[in-house]
């Protein structure tokens, strides 16, 4: 177990193994997203109430799921980094944050756009919308904090602490906002009370969600590899890797 964790912690090992895993995830992501998009955009039936505007769900929901999952993944990476001093975990956390913020933005934007035909307004202070907005701020905070430090080690540890504090707070925030919203009840629409969807509507949704998760994993692997190169630039194995001409197949070099 220990040996495995420390092997996992070695940037060199990770660089190698991720090179092998990465193509599979990219392929899966492309396949799933293209299938899901075609199906969702062109083949799934229109909603009997919302008509075709409902097709926004196929980007809105995957983005919203991913936005929340990435924050948890980031906090877990932070914990792993703080407890076991595994640097790769922090590198992954560092590259996850911008993607998480982007996904939160996508969820917010698609939701806002969707609101115009369905609710007649871009925005309302619904519980889920509000907590999503706060999630965006949490992401921005983590990114800003990491960028504000000049020392990389301090930046990593500070961002980890903030991600962990934030992840403890997310359920609390969600609970309070929900509670607050049920207290006020100003609007007549809610996201939660939707009739069950027919299969040909939710199947493409499941495919899109899976596709987004694969995309997230693939991108994180790729950018973590870049981050490894950046941080380990003066390690011998990186220099060998670069001067040897076989940068394209680094798996063998890395071993």
């Amino acid at each position: 177990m220990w040996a495995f964790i420390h092997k996992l912690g070695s940037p060199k090992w990770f660089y190698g193994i991720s090179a092998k895993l990465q193509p599979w995830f990219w392929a899966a992501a492309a396949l799933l997203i293209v299938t899901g998009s075609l199906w969702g955009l062109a083949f799934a039936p229109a909603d009997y109430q919302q008509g075709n505007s409902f097709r926004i769900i196929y980007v809105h929901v995957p983005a919203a799921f991913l936005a929340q999952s990435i924050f948890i993944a980031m906090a877990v990476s932070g914990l792993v980094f703080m407890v076991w001093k595994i640097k790769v975990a922090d590198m992954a956390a560092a590259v996850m944050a911008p993607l998480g913020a982007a996904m939160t933005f996508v969820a917010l934007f698609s939701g806002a756009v969707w609101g115009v035909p369905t609710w007649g307004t871009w925005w309302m202070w619904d519980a889920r919308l509000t907590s999503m907005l706060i999630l965006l701020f949490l992401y921005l905070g983590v990114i800003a904090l990491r960028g504000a430090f000049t020392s990389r080690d301090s930046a990593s540890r500070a961002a980890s602490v903030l991600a962990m504090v934030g992840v403890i707070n997310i359920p609390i925030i969600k609970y309070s906002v929900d509670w607050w919203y049920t207290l006020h009840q100003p609007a007549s629409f809610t996201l939660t009370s939707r009739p069950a969807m027919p299969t040909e509507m939710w199947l493409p949704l499941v495919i899109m969600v899976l596709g987004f998760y694969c995309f997230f994993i693939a991108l994180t692997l790729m950018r973590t590899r870049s981050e490894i190169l950046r941080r380990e630039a003066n390690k011998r194995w990186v220099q060998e890797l670069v001067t040897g001409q076989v940068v394209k197949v680094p798996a063998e070099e890395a071993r």
Partner: protein
Amino acid sequence: MPLREHNGGLMTAVKATLVRDLTLLLRRRGEVLNPLVFFALVITLFPIAISPDPELLAVIAPGLLWVAALLAALLSLDSLFRSDYDDGSLEQLLLAPQPLVALSLAKVAVHWLLTGLPLALMAPILGIMLALPAGSYAVLALSLALGTASLSLIGAIGAALTVGLARGGVLLSLLVLPLYIPVLIFGAGAVQAAIFGEGVSAHLAILGALLAASLMLAPWAIAASLRISING
């Protein structure tokens, strides 16, 4: 020269830290008043910017009071550890043979005593100016007293994380404000419930629970963050 054993004295150190921070703040008498005056000023901005209509003001008063108090508490946080960092005493605090958790808790306690508590005591007066309906004043003060304690604890994490950074002030708000939202909801909720004549005990109980949770977790996060900031 014999080596010393680590021989306690925690209470001495905590007490001295409390006294020191209290002296420092009270010596510059004006500074204790600053958050209060800021609170009052922000509250006066709203009628000017929105409308002097007392009926409208009464509706929005609980929210305005809570937001303004929250901002006042937030702004005074930036200096919680900064001057200690600048003159090197934070370094010394970290190298003291005493648990950093206890010492930093003492500093936070002083902060609450000299900002949160006065804000809570002053809020009813400003409530009068905003035409806050009678009967909610006690709840306003109580909810603020409980709530600002959590705010000080949570905010101190942010202050500790940003103490080494040049332009900490605004970054601190960015880190801390999202975490303040639960406290704000239940705090403002308590006052609104009092106005509508509903029961406030549930709100206050949750505020108490939030405070208990912050008291358990925040000091560790503060200590860890201070260690990080000293690191470079």
